[in-house]
């Protein structure tokens, strides 16, 4: 009697289990994330010079761009051409800077530096490969004709933009 009950019940449960199978559906949408990995620091190797060069006691800022889908975004990075805050300066500051790819998550990104477009202080990269790209920024400010920078704190801003194509 019991056997007659258990067997159909077990079959029924197994059948229910089979029906309970469900799909997991996912999609990857285009997305751009700007990650500020290292905040830069100016070294002061000479009284008239502020530089992010590591050999001069500076730290180069590093920005990472993550794009989930290729060919949807461009990165525009501008190295500084002015201080956002500083002591009062009564002479000209000459600016120099550069942006370069420092690390990539995909070897197909290796031509990003070759293909970048430069104008003014902006460096424009089309993000044609999905993944992460690290950009290293260098910045140098020279004051007057080898004139000493006044004592104080100097801040300059790197602009990192992610624009859909």
């Amino acid at each position, binding site marked *: 009697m019991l056997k007659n009950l258990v067997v159909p019940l077990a079959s029924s449960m197994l059948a229910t289990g089979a029906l309970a199978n469900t799909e997991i559906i996912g999609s*990857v*949408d*285009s*997305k*751009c*994330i*700007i*990650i*500020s*990995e290292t*905040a*830069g*620091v*100016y070294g002061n190797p000479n009284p008239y010079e502020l530089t*992010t060069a590591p050999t001069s006691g500076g*730290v180069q*800022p590093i*920005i*990472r761009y*993550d794009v*989930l889908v290729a060919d*949807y*975004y461009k990165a525009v990075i501008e190295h*500084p051409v002015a201080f*956002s*805050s500083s002591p009062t300066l009564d002479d000209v500051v000459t600016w120099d800077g550069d942006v370069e790819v420092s690390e990539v*998550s*995909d070897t197909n990104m290796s031509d990003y530096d070759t293909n970048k477009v430069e104008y003014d202080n902006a460096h424009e990269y089309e993000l044609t490969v*999905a*993944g*992460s790209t690290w950009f290293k920024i260098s*910045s140098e400010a020279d004051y007057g004709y080898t004139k000493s920078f006044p004592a104080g*704190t*100097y*801040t*300059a*801003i*790197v*602009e*990192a*933009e*992610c*624009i*859909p*194509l």
Partner: protein
Amino acid sequence: MKKYLVLILLVVSGPLWGIHASAHELTPTYPKLEQSYIPNVLQTKVKIWNARVDVNHYKLEVTDVFWNDVPFIAEEKLFKLDYMERREIEIFLPSDTTAQYICTRSMLQKGARSRSMISSKVCSKIR
């Protein structure tokens, strides 16, 4: 597939490696304008995520294809967004708008300790 896994691992496990990364994200990439409940007014929504520990204010900008500001209405154009918070932003535009880009820009505090700071701006493109 492997590429996406590496990317997801990088994003998720960064803090575990002691990398003090901080991120700024705006989605979707291509928001669509829809008719709002007000005649001749269009609306769209974007979502911002702040994972920048050094930033807690963002500015909303809407521009045309030449990066000129265009008129728009939002609850707040300059808003506070704490670390790891998300926010959905509703934007209203006139029906004849020339708006092309919706951008969020990180606002940095004057006199902050870091000497070289990074300002991030992420945009969405209206289609």
